[in-house]
């Protein structure tokens, strides 16, 4: 149960290794890695701003609610902030549960939240300058799937 916001690049595989180690009663670990796309040169860098002490607490609150809803044994979010180069991982989410349906759904749900409503402000730097990004319609639609 941890949320890490960090400016330094990270290796999702190493995080997954640490997360899965020593689990003898976990049947299922789902994970998601979000990578900054190069868009064939149209995106040269991504800049993510967080509000430390607010962004991490909000993500922890959503993670704890997901853990309760899907009976997770554990969950983890690592999220980059600052300048992110194309091809670098931006976000990594892992969920652990006894059975796979719960791990998949909780991971999917956390990603929808992180991509659409988490307190980040995102700027895309491209050859024509920089622009702040707003959530897409699809992000909103995906996130609404969970409002039952």
């Amino acid at each position, binding site marked *: 149960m941890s949320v890490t916001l960090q400016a330094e690049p990270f290796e999702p595989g190493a995080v997954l290794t640490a997360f899965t180690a020593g689990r003898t009663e976990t049947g299922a670990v789902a994970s998601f890695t*979000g990578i900054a796309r190069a868009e064939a040169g149209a995106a040269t860098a991504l800049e*993510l*701003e967080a*509000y430390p*002490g*607010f962004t991490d*607490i909000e993500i922890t609150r959503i993670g704890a609610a997901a853990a309760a809803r899907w009976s997770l044994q554990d969950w983890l979010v690592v*999220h*980059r902030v600052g300048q992110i180069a194309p091809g670098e991982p*931006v*976000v990594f989410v892992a969920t652990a549960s006894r059975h796979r349906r719960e791990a998949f759904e909780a991971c999917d749900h956390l990603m929808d*939240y*992180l*991509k*659409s*409503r*988490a*307190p*980040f*402000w*995102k*700027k895309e730097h491209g050859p024509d300058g920089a622009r*702040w*990004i*707003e*959530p897409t319609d699809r*992000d909103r639609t995906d996130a609404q799937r969970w409002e039952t």
Partner: protein
Amino acid sequence: MARVLLFGRLADAAGWRERTVEADSLSALRAALTASDAQLGEALAGPGVQAAVDKTILRGDAPLTAASEVAFLPPMSGG
């Protein structure tokens, strides 16, 4: 007096990210910021912009002390 933080496009528009401003309430702070930069004042009142006092989002007014931290948050984009 309060420590004021701006995020995302608000910081770009204002040209600063953090500043200490003399004000004993959120409404007085908004007025002080608008007086020094009318465009910023308008942006702060714009659609989807939220104010957080000591990391809690508030609607309406609130008293501020010297220890208060006020953050203005444009619509959150997700990561």
